[in-house]
């Protein structure tokens, strides 16, 4: 216990006053010459002992009254088992929510501005020699690299911080801060979390994680007091561009691309005629004044744009709606690598007499992949296909390709397999068709690591006459990007092609992991038709039948061309590390191995630049940059290379500005034993209690009143109570 007005404790000495009065009265007694002594003596004899006890009780109460009064006036504070903190310096960790929802404003003031100002005041108000650390939850990083006693440097750095980042992950932030707090030196510690209490930041699914993070804090050597500071002024009105869909998996020069923007109105007010604009590489599309969409309250809509890219390389598409306070989600960016050519290496296991001989295993496929080239038409194909026999495949031509297609290849030597392994691991696409030459033992053996599924036997009859085929591709709804085209009958169907023979793939062994093989399509016999497997950073798709018309009639069907093209484009699209990232996702770029050891220059969304080393990994130079907390456009430039755009978009869940109710916040705090404040005054009051303890003069007042009345009642009771006579 501590006392805010310790001088008043001297008043405890007043407990001697009743004692002195008692002794004084006892010594200054009256003398009465008494006649009826026989009446009095009997009473004294029987009551003397009890009266003495009662007198002691009354005397004790009378002594306690001034003592309690003095204690009360000394403003006692209860600190529990805590150390006497008083004015000792503290170690403070502030978790500042700078997610983009904090940009919501009322009366022109952003929630984040309030939170930042409060943080500045909080840090500025810390006791001298205190240690502070500010963690920016939206960015998932510390304001400074480590905690510091130089509080002015913290407040200075705070001035440069803004909101507009990704979602604030409270459990992760608390976990991070627990590690930092552990390294701080003060034993009076506090964690202050300033947030807008957006409902999505505290989902029920995070409840357990939050509990675990707080538990970790409690287990620290010096557990901190955790305070939730509600700085959120709820403002539901917000329109967000949620996502963009492209009609093509890969965009080629001169190809028409449809861009569909999904827009959601989170507010309770309808937004008629909301203007949506498309910008490509920072410029509004010439000749379009943008589109308009009408959105009812709490509903979503779509806007469709079309665009033709006239240059290969990295392009940026921006879809922007009319401004509202939460700017981060008014804009959705997409980085589009526009390809001039996509290189596909066709490895023919049963080549024809000439390279363009349709009797060869890859004849139909080559035409399907480069129809304009094959048809001698003055238009450019996206895909440039080249054919090599099985023995012609080598590390060089494999590495230079975007997709490698193995067609009825009996077997490859170890070097070829090694080259393919590396190729796929680094993100290359491998498309494998079986056939009569396929060696099941080689497939299941040396090729087994790459093969999505093992071959179990042969299905159907390769010699069956047309019209008597044993199977067809089962008509089904496809979920795979390369096949979903066939969900629309106008694009043709796979189900009208006959499959005379096929290799039966063994049922996949499920491990539950992300690398489990997936059956993309089946034959109506139930055997897999197309199976896919992720391998390293690349993918392998295997088809149970032939690429040519030996075992099936697919090449003669209209669906053959889109099937082969889309499978290749799908697999090729994976060759490049993703350029459209989520906040916090690592930015990766593959560069030629010659660039390894140099440095790439990365321009961040705020136009500042950082140098990122190019590291040699396998046959490539790789750039990795994990600090992508800030949504926006990142530009990567390597000396002598092309500019590559990367886009980081924040999770749009943050756009829902719906705030937790006060009751929910209280319940959350109660569940986890936290404190909630809404203003600086409340925080100061709480801090005072936590620092100095809780003022407990009220219980003392109660005790005092009880003693006062108790003395009165006891005195009456002792005097009037029934006596033994």
């Amino acid at each position, binding site marked *: 216990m501590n006392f805010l007005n310790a001088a008043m404790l001297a008043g405890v000495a007043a407990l001697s006053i009743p004692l002195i009065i008692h002794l004084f009265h006892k010594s200054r007694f*009256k*003398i009465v*010459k008494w*006649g*009826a002594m026989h009446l009095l003596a009997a009473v004294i004899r029987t009551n003397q002992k009890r*009266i003495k006890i009662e*007198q002691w009780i009354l005397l004790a109460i009378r002594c306690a009254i001034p003592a309690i009064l003095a204690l009360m006036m000394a403003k006692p504070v209860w600190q529990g088992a805590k150390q006497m903190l008083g004015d000792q310096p503290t170690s403070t960790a502030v978790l500042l929510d700078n997610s983009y929802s904090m940009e919501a404003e009322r009366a022109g003031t952003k929630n984040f501005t309030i939170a930042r100002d409060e943080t500045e005041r909080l840090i500025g108000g810390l006791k001298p020699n205190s240690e502070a650390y500010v963690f920016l939850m939206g960015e998932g990083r510390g304001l400074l690299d480590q905690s510091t006693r130089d509080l002015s440097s913290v407040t200075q750095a705070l001035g440069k911080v803004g909101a507009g980042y990704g979602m604030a992950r409270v459990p992760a932030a608390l976990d991070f801060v627990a590690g930092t707090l552990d390294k701080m030196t003060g034993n009076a510690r506090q964690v202050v979390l300033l947030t807008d209490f957006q409902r999505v930041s505290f989902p029920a699914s995070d409840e357990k994680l939050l509990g675990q993070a707080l538990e970790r804090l409690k287990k620290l050597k010096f557990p901190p007091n955790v305070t939730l500071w509600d700085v959120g002024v709820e403002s539901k009105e917000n329109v967000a561009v949620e996502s963009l869909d492209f009609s093509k998996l890969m965009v080629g020069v001169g190809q028409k691309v449809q861009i569909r923007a999904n827009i959601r109105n989170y507010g309770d007010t309808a937004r008629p005629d909301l203007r949506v604009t498309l910008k490509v590489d920072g410029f509004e599309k010439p000749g379009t004044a943008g589109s308009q969409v009408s959105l009812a309250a709490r509903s979503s809509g779509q806007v469709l744009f079309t665009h033709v890219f006239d240059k290969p390389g990295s392009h940026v598409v921006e879809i922007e709606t009319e401004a509202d306070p939460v700017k981060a989600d008014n804009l959705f960016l997409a980085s589009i690598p526009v390809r001039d050519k996509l290189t596909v290496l066709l490895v023919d296991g049963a080549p024809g007499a000439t390279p363009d001989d349709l009797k060869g295993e890859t004849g139909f496929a080559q035409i399907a992949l480069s129809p304009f080239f094959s048809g001698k038409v003055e238009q450019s194909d996206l895909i440039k296909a080249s054919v090599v026999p099985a023995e012609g495949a080598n590390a060089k031509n494999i590495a230079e390709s975007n997709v490698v297609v193995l067609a009825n290849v009996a077997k490859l030597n170890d070097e070829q397999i090694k080259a393919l392994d590396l190729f796929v691991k680094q993100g290359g696409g491998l498309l494998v068709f079986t056939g009569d030459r396929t060696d099941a033992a080689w497939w299941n053996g040396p090729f087994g690591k790459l093969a999505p599924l093992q071959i179990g036997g042969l299905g159907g009859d390769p010699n069956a006459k047309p019209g008597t085929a044993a199977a067809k591709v089962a008509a089904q709804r496809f979920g795979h990007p390369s096949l979903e085209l066939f969900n629309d009958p106008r694009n043709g169907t796979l189900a009208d092609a006959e499959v005379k023979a096929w290799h039966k793939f063994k049922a996949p062994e499920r491990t539950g992991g992300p690398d489990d093989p997936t059956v993309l399509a089946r034959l109506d016999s139930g055997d897999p038709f197309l199976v896919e497997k992720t391998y390293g950073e690349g993918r392998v798709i295997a088809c149970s039948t032939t690429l040519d018309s030996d075992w099936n009639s697919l090449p003669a069907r209209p669906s053959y061309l889109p099937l082969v093209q889309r499978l290749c484009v799908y697999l090729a699209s994976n060759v490049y590390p993703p350029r459209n990232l989520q906040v916090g996702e690592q930015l990766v770029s593959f560069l030629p191995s010659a660039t390894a050891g140099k440095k790439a220059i990365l321009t961040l969304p705020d136009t500042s630049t950082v140098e990122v080393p190019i590291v040699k990994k396998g046959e490539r130079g790789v750039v990795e940059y994990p600090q992508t907390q800030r949504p926006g456009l990142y530009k990567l430039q390597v000396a002598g290379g092309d500019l590559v755009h990367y886009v980081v978009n924040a999770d749009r869940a943050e756009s829902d500005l719906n705030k937790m109710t006060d009751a929910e916040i209280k319940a959350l705090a109660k569940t986890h034993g936290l404190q909630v404040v809404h203003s600086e005054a409340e925080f100061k009051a709480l801090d005072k209690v936590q620092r100095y303890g809780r003022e407990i003069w009220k219980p003392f007042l109660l005790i005092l009143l009880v003693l006062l009345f108790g003395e009165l009642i006891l005195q009456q009771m002792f*005097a*009037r*109570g029934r006596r033994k006579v």
Partner: protein
Amino acid sequence: MAHVSDFLTPTDLQRISSLQVLARVVVEGFTTGLHRSPHKGYSVEFKQHRQYVAGDEIRHIDWRVFGRSDRYYIREYEEETNLRSTIILDRSGSMNYSGTKSGGVTKYDYATRLAACLSYMMVHQADGVGLVTFDDKIRRYIPPRSKVSHLRLIIDELEKGKPGGETDLGDVFHDLVPKLHRRGLLIIISDCFGEVANFLKAMAHFRHARHEIVVFQIWDRDELEFPFRGWTQFDCLEQDGVKHLLDPAMLRQAYLENLAKFRDELVKGCRKHHIDLVPFCTDEPYSKALAAYMTRRLGRA
């Protein structure tokens, strides 16, 4: 009808130094307006019969004589005085108490004035009156007479006596019984402090000797209410060295209960022996005593 003494408190009357003057003021005040009885014969000793004449009270007719002779006769008594009364006055230490509300009048002062008034009234009604004073033993015995000069003797004794010493009512009263040869009215003026059983035993002894008894129990208001506050040392008036230092407020209730018990026992005991117990408080007028006496005298007629 109101009389002068009703308007005079014992404190006022204290200013009258002469007991005789005081007695006259009180008694004459009390008796003013009373019809003097034309009849003799309220004594306890029978003397003769006489013929009934008109005006005699019918209740004094001797019906046994009428039964025998068919004539009306009235019983008359032998004594020249109507009543032989002996005032037994307690002058023990406890009677020397003067309370906070009594204006300096001790219980003994009150008792002596009461005795003087009674004596005065008795003598002036031609009743014989005697006086016994005692503490732990009999200090003075004046036998009953009805002469006015005898009154002087009693009043002198009352003025002369000082209270002190212990009381032992039982022993004293037992000693007194043989001295009172003829039965009569005994008026005991005392606070009756002591063992109730002893006191009642002595009363029984008196009653055995066929005495009529009236006890005027003298209280001080303090003894009835115990109003003391603050630390007080109670020094015993009867025994030197007996003292108790205490906070009286703590004991008041117990004391009052003990007092009630004591008075209850006394009242019951007296009722049992057909003794009139008349409690007095020293702030009450003396006329109450005289009224009690008169009631008693008439009750005997």
